[in-house]
């Protein structure tokens, strides 16, 4: 009997290491962004998104992620801005209600940092992005935190008059925090 327990204890770390996290706790996850308006950083958030993620912290390279953002759920910092960015020259949400990210590969950057490569599709335009992220396991949960930048004009976000990058900067930082079980 005792021997079996010892054997089980020895196996535990093996199980723990090979745990794959697949369930994204959406209420505790968030996707935010920071744009610069007249050099002023303004934070925004996408309140609604879905995420299919599979990742094993022992082997992140085999991980995959598929994230879909409901663009109408955007909060760009003020009600005036929210109305504006749903319109044609920004996200045109009636025509393109969703943005998506689909990972193609994950590589290690060393020191517990990784990078997901994949396609980010906004307004029907699919472009390659590289999103560095870090993993942290805590009480049976996995924190995935990352930050990357895109150029909004590459996707035609904020065209026409708003194309003036001296008012709204081209670069937009996107931050994601996913909590997985």
């Amino acid at each position, binding site marked *: 009997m005792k021997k079996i327990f010892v054997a089980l204890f020895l196996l535990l770390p093996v199980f723990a290491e090979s745990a794959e996290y697949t369930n994204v706790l959406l209420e505790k996850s968030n996707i935010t962004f920071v744009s610069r*308006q*007249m*050099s*002023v*950083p*303004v*934070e925004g958030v996408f309140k609604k998104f879905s995420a299919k993620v599979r990742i094993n912290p022992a082997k992140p390279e085999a991980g995959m992620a598929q994230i879909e953002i409901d663009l109408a759920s955007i909060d760009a*910092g*003020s009600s*005036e*801005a929210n*109305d*504006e960015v749903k319109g044609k020259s920004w996200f045109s949400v009636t025509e393109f209600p969703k943005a998506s990210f689909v990972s193609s590969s994950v590589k290690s950057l060393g020191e517990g940092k990784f990078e997901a490569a994949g396609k980010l599709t906004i307004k029907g335009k699919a472009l390659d992005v590289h999103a560095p992220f870090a993993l942290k396991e805590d009480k049976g949960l996995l924190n995935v935190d990352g930050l990357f930048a895109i150029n909004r004009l590459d996707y035609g976000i904020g065209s026409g*008059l*708003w194309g*003036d990058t001296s*008012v*709204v900067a081209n670069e937009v930082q996107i931050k994601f925090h996913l909590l997985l079980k």
Partner: protein
Amino acid sequence: MTGVMAYTRTAVILHWLMALLVFVTFPVGLVMHEMALSPDKLRMLSYHKWLGVTVFVLVMVRLVWRAMHKPAPLDVSMPRWQHMAAEGVHVLLYVLLFAIPLSGWLMSSAKGFQTVYLGVLPLPDLLAKNKMLGDALSELHEALNVTMLVLVGMHIAASLKHQFIDHDGTLARMLPFMNRSSSK
């Protein structure tokens, strides 16, 4: 005229610089408030905030300067209530020149838009983002501005009355070149 300057040259320059700033910042604020969201509106919002920060700094410079260089008392014969009214309006204008930019700064913080002076110097956010507080401060900013508009109107009207009805040289205290031409 006595020929003695009531206000130092620095005080006179600060007064007119402040007047110029107020006469630009106020209409920029009015116009941008009515504009629909556009790049031009964001530009004007920033200019308005930069001007406001300048007023805020300048009023403190003025108050320090004034504390160190007391102006000569107004030496004209007029009823006591007029002296008190003039004093009162001056004090209130100083208070507003301080309180209006401050309320704007607080409002910006509460609305979640930081103030970055001249697009270079970020000012600390004095409040956390809070929509209700932001809207309340917006009302306060507007009410203070309406008050200032009335007081500036009284300030100008009184100076014109002194100049064109009383002919007592009060306006020349702030316009030294008038002093020179009227004292020859």
